């Protein structure tokens, strides 16, 4: 995580290239997301899933090119912490949706949509 920003000698053109590649990929993925949300060419029910995949891909790009999370050995602690964080995020979001979805399907009063 600290690699590219720590070492002064590395800060030259290679650091700039990393940020620029990251920006280009992020712009590409963002533009694709906005296109996917607005086009009529794609199958409607698949759009939400497509947007989720594009968002996760872009978060990965930001982690690697902007936050410099890598698989290098000196980065193991950062990656392990990230993995644990993602596990908690997954449990919170998926658990809440699962339980609350179950709950509302068992309540005949509530029929939003």
């Amino acid at each position, binding site marked *: 995580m600290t690699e590219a*920003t720590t070492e002064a000698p590395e800060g030259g053109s290679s650091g700039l290239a990393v940020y620029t590649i990251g920006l280009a990929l992020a712009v590409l993925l963002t533009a694709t997301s906005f296109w996917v949300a607005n086009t009529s060419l794609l199958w409607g029910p698949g759009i939400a899933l497509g947007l989720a995949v594009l968002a996760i891909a872009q978060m990965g790009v930001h982690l690697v090119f902007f936050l410099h999370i890598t698989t290098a050995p000196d980065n193991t602690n950062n990656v392990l912490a990230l993995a644990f964080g993602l596990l908690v995020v997954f449990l919170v*979001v998926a658990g*809440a949706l699962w339980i609350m979805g179950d709950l509302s399907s068992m309540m005949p009063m509530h029929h939003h949509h």
Partner: protein
Amino acid sequence: MNIAVEIRDVAPQALSSVANAGPAPKRIVVGYGFWIFLLSDIVMFAALFAAYAVLVNATAGGPAGSQLFDQRNVAIETACLLLSSYTCGLMSLAASSRRRGAFYLAAVLTFVLGAAFLALEIREFADMVVRGATPQSSAFLSAFFTLVGCHGLHVTVGLLWLVVMMAQVAAKGFRASVGRRLLCFSLFWHALDIIWVALFSVVYLMGVSP
């Protein structure tokens, strides 16, 4: 098993670098600690996202997202924040090679782009309130203002922090302690952009797509 082996491999290096006690190991420890804080912040946002996803259809007869959100505005906000993440990266590079002029230029650009994002968000909120879509009008809007407003508050704090960092560089120069704070700031700013990616995808784009 693999994980255990990895930790055992890393531990001796970490110990030896702590024993050397130069500025570099401290920088790594500070970065790691701040990374843990950022992950806890992301977990908090996950809870807000979960609340939003559960409540998104609970509009209580009021307006839904598709009637409220302006995609053009969101696209400009996204561009501002993404470019400010890039200029923040350039700021880190300038700081690590101790180029003052480039540092100030990148810091000011980062600030202006972040402030533009915030202005657009405040204008969007004000427009919604004028149209009667207040946080009190439905569970959906409560969740929306909490989630997006919390990100906006983070950006506000980030802008204040950036001003403090510019003042510190002006007063103290690129000394090690200032460098560590700049590292934490850049991690914070990039993490906010990551949260915004989830926000514009889940709240705005999924909200307006049919």
